């Protein structure tokens, strides 16, 4: 991972990248990170921070130190990333494909057998040459929520039942925006487009 350019204090808990799966057969996606002392703490915090709304069946957490990310620009100036050492074995590969607005960074796209992190990154680059960022980490570094229905239910169902957290729950209050516009009470176009 990119080295911080500011001095960091060593007393904070390690950072874990969080991967959320919205439904079975969907990829795990990188949603952000949490600080935690141990794997269970990381998973619980990840649920509190990233799954306050429906749509999750599985969470993975991976320690920041075990993750290697790179952008194409980074690789043009820092070839050494491809020599990053690591244990031989199965590595997960994540890629970022577009600059479109998104809530997530990379989608996990599969696994490779690699001799280390740098080798996994090299393979990711060959498999996905035209993406905007790559991420790799060893399977051994992943901590995950259990996949049995009971765990999925107890971890993720409570968020689903709280429909008052959804804006749809409130419907249209008062007159619809379109109506207010037609009545001349709101400008038809955004103010920022005026006079452009």
């Amino acid at each position, binding site marked *: 991972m990119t080295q911080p350019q500011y001095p960091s204090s060593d007393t904070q808990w390690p950072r874990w990248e969080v991967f959320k799966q919205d439904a079975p057969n969907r990829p795990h996606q990188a949603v*952000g*990170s949490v600080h935690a002392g141990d794997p269970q703490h990381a998973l619980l915090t990840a649920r509190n921070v990233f799954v306050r709304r429906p749509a999750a069946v599985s969470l993975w957490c991976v320690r920041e130190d075990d993750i290697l990310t790179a952008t194409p*620009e980074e690789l043009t100036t820092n070839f050494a990333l491809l020599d990053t050492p690591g244990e031989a074995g199965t590595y997960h590969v994540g890629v970022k494909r577009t600059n479109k607005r998104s*809530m997530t960074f990379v989608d996990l796209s599969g696994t490779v057998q690699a001799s280390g992190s740098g080798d996994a990154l090299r393979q990711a680059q060959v498999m996905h040459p035209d993406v*905007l960022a790559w991420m790799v980490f060893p399977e051994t570094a992943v901590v995950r929520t259990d996949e049995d229905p009971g765990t999925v239910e107890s971890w993720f169902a409570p968020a689903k039942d709280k429909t008052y957290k959804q804006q749809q*729950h409130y419907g249209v209050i*008062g007159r619809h925006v379109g109506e207010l516009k037609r009545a001349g*009470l*709101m400008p038809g176009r955004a103010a920022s487009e005026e006079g452009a």
Partner: protein
Amino acid sequence: MTHPTPAQTGITPGETAEQHAHFEARIARGEKIEAGDWMPAEYRRQLIRMISQHAHSEVVGMLPEGEWITRAPSLRRKTILMAKVQDEAGHGQYLYHAAETLGATREDMLQALLSGKAKYSSIFNYPTHSWADVGMIGWLVDGAAIKNQTMLAGCSYGPYSRAMVRICSEETFHHKQGKEMIVAYAQGTPQQRAMAQDALNRWWWPAMMMLGPHDADSPNSGVLTRWGIKLKSNDEVRQEFINEHVPELLEAGLTIPDPDLHQDEHGNWRHGPIHWDEFWAVIRGEQGLNKERLGARQAAHDDGAWVRDALQAYTDRQRAVAAD
């Protein structure tokens, strides 16, 4: 003779014109800058400042509303308010994460907040006098925040933009529940109507001011605009906010405390003069609840020490067991 500072030019000694040209071309093409990419030191500095302030605002923003959880008038309102306050905690977390991708540490940011060095939105230094304030905050304060955050969702820095997309989708709930509550009170008993009107009288101008100084008085806008961090000016965002909220507040039967408010020939609602002296006094902490907010934050930090200690002890124990 004085030299222009990096804050004015965006160029820090040691950076080349080519690097800047390449960087600005990427932004012009609509690319997102990611953590490992080259970026001007000033871009990094401005982003850390903005994102950490934004994170602090989410965290401190829990306090004025959190005070009302125990006093909510119904179980439904209580669960809604708890979910909203919990969301704001989460928003702080998303944003601290985004700042960390730039090299800032959680501890330094927390320290800056607790020591009073870092700023947060001055809107949260206003007191909440009645239950209707909870609704009015949702409608106006979250409403204003959504306008700003929708703009920032399009900003050039990937991790900040993604945090904003996630936040905006949750803020819409905050806005709606507040609007629902106030519209109900505005159509309720004379007492309820008076409570809603009183809340509007006190929150209207602070909500207008929270979108920042007028463009002519906004010191950081130059490089922020050039680098695609701020895609609209403060006045543009404020205009969007007014255009949406004025008709809805009027429709609810409430009176907006601005005698000069009127619609121009384009349909835009134009506001009267804003009293910025109050805004700056609150920012400087001379007026409002700055001390109380930081005191409450510090107390929460201290009261949570035993939890952090316990978690640390557990972590240490697990490591020791693993090492055996």
